[in-house]
């Protein structure tokens, strides 16, 4: 196949599939967004548990983080999908999004823990010296500063999540990669089809990166 021929088939595949991919892309964005929200909530909770004084909470947080970091995401998705759906009836979309969220929580917890511990000790002391209690100090003084510091690594993690969302195809979710798989199986143009789907992921990542840059700049100006 010559290069111009390749370009033509690529174009054809693109034109034939873009409607289906647009829908699938939306699903990818939805799964990612849900996973990011779940992951961030879990991340904050487990980060606070990990830096708490309670040995029990610390152990629970460590166990969670170790288990998630120590096993492949694809195994976690399968495990949670069959685990959850054996107890309650859940669409595979939701099972996938929740699994991805739980996976992310462990990484985000470590991001938050690092950024909280990176805040100068003097900030906490100044707050306590004013008579604020520990929870007020965390909520009003330490965490807002830690959050700013966490935004670049969080953005990075969100990009990873976007790409990792492709793995939920294993439980039959029709997101970008799942659709690409099906399309390639029917048109036999695997190379062009995966090139197209790669392009979609790239575009999504670039859009997200631009949004993140814009937000970081905005924070800097405010300060």
């Amino acid at each position, binding site marked *: 196949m010559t290069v111009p021929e390749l370009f033509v088939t690529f174009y054809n595949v693109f034109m034939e599939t873009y409607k289906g991919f647009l829908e699938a892309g939306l699903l990818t964005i939805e799964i990612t967004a849900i996973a990011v929200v779940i992951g961030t909530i879990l991340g904050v909770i487990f980060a606070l548990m990990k830096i708490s004084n309670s040995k029990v909470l610390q152990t629970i947080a460590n166990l969670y983080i170790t288990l998630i970091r120590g096993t492949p995401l694809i195994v976690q998705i399968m495990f949670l999908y069959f685990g959850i759906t054996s107890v309650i009836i859940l669409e595979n979309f939701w099972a996938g999004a929740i699994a991805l969220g739980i996976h992310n929580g462990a990484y985000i917890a470590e991001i938050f823990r690092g950024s909280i511990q990176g805040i100068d000790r*003097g900030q906490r002391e100044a707050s306590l010296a*004013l008579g*604020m209690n520990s929870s007020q100090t965390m909520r009003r003084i330490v965490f807002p500063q830690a959050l700013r510091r966490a935004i670049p690594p969080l953005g990075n993690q969100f990009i990873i999540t976007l790409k990792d969302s492709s793995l939920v195809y294993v439980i039959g979710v029709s997101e970008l990669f799942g659709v690409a798989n099906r399309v390639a199986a029917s048109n036999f143009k695997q190379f062009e089809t995966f090139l197209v789907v790669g392009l979609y992921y790239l575009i999504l990542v670039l859009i997200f990166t631009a949004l993140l840059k814009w937000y970081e700049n905005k924070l800097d100006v405010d300060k």
Partner: protein
Amino acid sequence: MIKAENVHKSFGKLEVLKGIDMEVHPGEVVVLVGVSGSGKSTFLRCLNFLELTNEGVITIDGKRVNQKKDDLAKVRAEVGMVFQHFNLFPHKTVLENVMEAPIMVKKVAKSTAKTTALEILEKVGLSDKADVYPNKLSGGQKQRVAIARALAMEPKALLFDEPTSALDPELVGEVLQVMKDLADEGMTMVVVTHEMKFAREVADRVIMLNEGIIIEDADPDTFFNHSTNERTRQFLEMVNV
């Protein structure tokens, strides 16, 4: 106002405070001096329970504080503290820095807190900086905001931990002036400092710490001019007064 009895503090095996007794009366200005490592900053931090003592009793305004059972936040709300490195909240404006604790701790209405905060900022000469973020301020201005922030809680006493040590020399004066004004108004103050001129002019008593114990407690004139303590005289020679 503040009374410390037999205060001991160790960090691991290192015993930093070896039994300190001190009383500060209302309206008194006490300056703590000593070489670095003498325990003066640690002692000051014990008075606000940022460090918990291993032994001894601290009484604030007639109330013995139980470090384990009492709500330390309540105790701390009554004694302000000013730090060497200011520790202003960088994500809040000057005004928000000053308003934060009255709103959160004393549950003062926002509008009231704002009025009070502006009055206090006026007093330290920074009302024009109310809406600025701390990173736009000079060191001297930062420290004056930190003092304003402590004052906003209407503390019964103020603790200063080397408030001018992190400042460029030309900015020291403006901070000392604010402290002097506070002293003149009758604020009870405990000040750890290397500013001997401030100690001489403003202090009611100068206390010298050495290796975790008080070795001299005297009025400034006696301390600076007639001390018979060998260590004190060595120290004064070292700091050149």
